[in-house]
């Protein structure tokens, strides 16, 4: 199912005054897509997900499921979660403490007054899919975090929802379990083919699991795209630093033009920018702007070249296979990811940017 958000806005009125938790977001989620909402804490991800689920009501805007209008502030249209047929997995799992696992999974079917036999079959099928068949008669409080999470997912898939919504479902699991569950979740989604919206504030998780990612910040949509697009073409410095670990280096500078060639200056050295990217740099000429370069796109050279900078190594941090090196060019600190052996603190080296990967942003 396709989900379309038009000018979606949610305003909370609380003692603090008015808060726009979600502000004029326009989005389209494609059928069968694994869509991730990513952003810092308090950005409005959960609120947006709740709006899609029908757990909150729009203050302005519209939400469409395929050709059906499910919520419109102006039109006074509001479909309940039940009418929208969505399934939700909560961060706290929200298992019913008074029911055992079987009854928890069966709950949505019972509410929809399904047949006894089909209920049993569906529950067992869902339990099998999530490998919790042997837990069916345990109470939630007897289960481990990972098991609870599976039960919550089983409860969500048991009734074939048209939309699958997950709000940070993995954040209560330990790191290893998180990795494996992430993979399983992705697989499950591919198998079921249900359109899925997944909220997380972990960019690694988002990149590895999402078909497309929307970055949400302060209630607004910052950028939407595939993980590769976000990685390679971040729209602004915020996205650039938010995606990738460590984030992109940002360097404040300006672009000069001389004889039809564009230059940038860093410290007391300037380098020329490649001719084939002229279009990208044109509009920044003679303005202060921000250059972005990822740590993995900087090379440490054994010798000086025309395009390299002199830099002093300030610190070295081992990441296992690679090393994260902090260098400074005059006053500017830059992180470099390298596997060059034998580097030492305070050593002076020459570094070179992969200029084809260079990003430039408005200040």
């Amino acid at each position, binding site marked *: 199912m396709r989900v379309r958000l038009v000018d979606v806005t949610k305003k909370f009125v609380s003692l603090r005054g008015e808060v726009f938790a979600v502000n004029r977001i326009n989005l389209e989620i494609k059928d069968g897509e694994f869509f991730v909402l990513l952003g810092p804490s308090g950005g409005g991800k959960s609120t947006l997900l709740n709006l899609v689920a029908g*757990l909150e009501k729009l203050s302005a805007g519209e939400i469409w499921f395929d050709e059906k209008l499910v919520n419109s502030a102006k039109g006074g249209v509001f479909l309940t979660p*039940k009418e929208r047929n969505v399934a939700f997995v909560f961060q706290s799992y929200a298992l*019913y403490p*008074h029911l055992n696992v079987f009854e928890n999974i069966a709950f949505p079917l019972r509410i929809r007054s399904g047949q006894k036999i089909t209920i049993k079959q569906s529950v067992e099928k869902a339990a099998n899919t999530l490998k919790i068949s042997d837990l069916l008669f345990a109470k939630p409080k007897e289960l481990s975090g990972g098991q609870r999470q599976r039960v919550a997912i089983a409860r969500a898939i048991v009734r074939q929802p048209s939309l699958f919504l997950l709000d940070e479902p993995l954040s209560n699991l330990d790191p290893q379990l998180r990795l494996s569950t992430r993979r399983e979740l992705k697989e499950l989604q591919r198998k079921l083919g249900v359109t899925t919206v997944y909220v997380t504030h972990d960019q690694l998780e988002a990149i590895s699991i999402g078909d497309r990612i929307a970055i949400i910040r302060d209630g607004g949509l910052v950028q939407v795209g595939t993980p590769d697009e976000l990685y390679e073409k971040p729209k602004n410095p915020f996205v650039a630093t938010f995606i990738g670990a460590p984030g992109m280096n940002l360097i404040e500078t300006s672009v000069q033009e001389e004889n039809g060639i564009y230059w940038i200056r860093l410290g007391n050295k300037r380098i020329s920018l490649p001719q084939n990217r002229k279009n990208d740099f044109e509009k920044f000429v003679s303005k202060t702007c921000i250059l972005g370069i990822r740590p993995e796109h900087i090379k440490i050279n054994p010798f000086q070249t025309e395009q390299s900078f002199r830099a002093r190594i300030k610190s070295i941090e081992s990441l296992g296979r690679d090393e994260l090196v902090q260098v400074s060019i005059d006053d500017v600190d830059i992180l470099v990811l390298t596997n060059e052996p034998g580097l030492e603190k305070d050593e002076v080296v020459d570094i070179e940017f992969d200029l084809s990967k260079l990003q430039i942003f408005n200040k």
Partner: protein
Amino acid sequence: MGERRLKSILIILGSIFMIAFCLMPFLYMLIISISKNPDFLASLGNFQFASDNYHGILTIKSLHFLDYLRNSIVVSAVSAFITVLIAGLAAYAITRLTLLGKVFILLFVLAISMFPQISIVSYLYRFMGRLNWINTYQGLIFPYIAWILPLSLWILVSYFSQIPRDLDRAGLVDGCSKWQILRKIIFPVAAPGLFSTALLAFIFAFNEFMFAVMLTIDYHSRTVPVGIALFQGLHGEIPWGTIMAASTIATVPIVICTILFQRHIIQGITRGAVKG
């Protein structure tokens, strides 16, 4: 060392005093109820066991004790049940739903529970008179419900607000209406809380006196506390043995309940009070 020793002595003495103070009247009631003469203390050592008192209170029809007991139990049980139901609905709305003036409702209800009963009862008396409800069960049950509601509401609000909101949301997504969420999720999860509230409500109704004095006339609806308070002898001498036997029969079940469910009751009292 000295301080600790002194402290434990003080604690032991204090505890003995506490137990004696709390239990003595209760035990006194039990003893008088099974003694032949209530005046055995005056002529020491003259205690004689007798079950006459119990026999009398249970068999002499004109005393109507069993009627009083039945009235009390019916009125208290019905009041407690309905009160918990109504308070449960309201507590659900106050803790979960969009509602303007939640705090106002809570404070209003709290203020109401502080009104002296005397400022209500005369009007109620005439109101019930007009409805022809004096000396009926409903004539007691309705005021009782209103009277116990504030306490029950506060206790239940405190219980309900501890149930995670995500459970409601999960229920909504799973297709429940608000009413179903209340019935299938909140009520079952809060069952211990509902139980303690009902127990407290029952005890409150059972113990109520002023409404019962004003709104009942005879054994058709008179409750045990009033019955026992008005118990007079036929020949001038107060039949203490009989009164104490009646008191014992009326209180021992409640005391046993209290002992069995002390945890629930203590929780109920503290939630009702400490939150307010």
